[in-house]
């Protein structure tokens, strides 16, 4: 293990690991996403074809996973910013982490139907 890349923290360490993993994941998705969107310069058919893959059920499910990664990274990123700039940030970092987790669970529950609607309606009808 390279020096200084793992420390024996508690929730703070795991939130850092999750922030890093989600950040890298989002970056790789973004790279692919710019490439697929670039197909609008090729032809409407090429673009609609690639968008059709987003509508396949397991890609739709991965999209829900992407939403999960982005929501966590965004909320925890705001927490990191608060720890850095808010004078009481370090004192409340743990409470803020559990607020992030709670809010994330709520938003993920709320996103379940809208994001997976395409798959759910093709499987179970309207």
């Amino acid at each position, binding site marked *: 293990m390279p020096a200084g890349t793992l420390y024996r923290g508690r929730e703070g360490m795991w939130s850092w690991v999750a922030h890093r993993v989600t950040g890298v994941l989002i*970056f790789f998705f973004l790279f692919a996403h710019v490439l697929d*969107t670039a197909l609008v310069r090729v032809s409407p058919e090429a673009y609609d074809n690639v968008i059709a893959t987003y509508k396949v059920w397991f890609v739709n499910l991965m*999209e829900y996973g992407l939403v999960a990664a982005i929501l966590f990274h965004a909320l925890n990123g705001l927490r990191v910013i608060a720890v850095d700039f808010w004078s009481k940030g370090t004192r409340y970092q743990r409470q803020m982490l559990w607020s992030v987790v709670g809010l994330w669970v709520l938003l993920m529950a709320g996103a379940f139907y809208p994001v997976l609607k395409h798959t759910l309606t093709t499987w179970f009808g309207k």
Partner: protein
Amino acid sequence: MSTETSPVELVSSSQPHTGKGLSADGVHVIEPPRARTPRTPRVTRGNFEMWAWLFMRLSGVVLVVLVLGHLVIQLVVDGGVSKISFAFVAGRWASPFWQGWDLLMLWLAMLHGSNGLRTVINDYAERANTRLWLKSLLLVATVFTVLLGTLVIFTFDPNI
């Protein structure tokens, strides 16, 4: 840091290996450890890492609005992903507002993500050569993606 320290300081016997602390009259004198001499470079290091740190936080705040807004528009309202098609893109990019939104989101997310990945590479790639290659690859991928995306937004043609 102040450079004004008393001109005379005592040096313990274990320290005079530099020979500097010894003055002619036997009083041990040593310069303050960080004294600036005429040979000290005026700027010892740049502030790049500080600006990178600040950029991560500023771009992060803006990205919350841009990215979460993007997700709501693309995946939640009006039937979610079902509605997305060439025609839908054409409708949105007809407006300079959404072109600007997507352009800013592209640049900020790519620079933010790419700088984040630079940190990750610095942390895990132990050999200097490996770091150099990985960061060169990252730079090429980032420049390519940002330029391609920008070109696509500006040259989009709904009547292709």
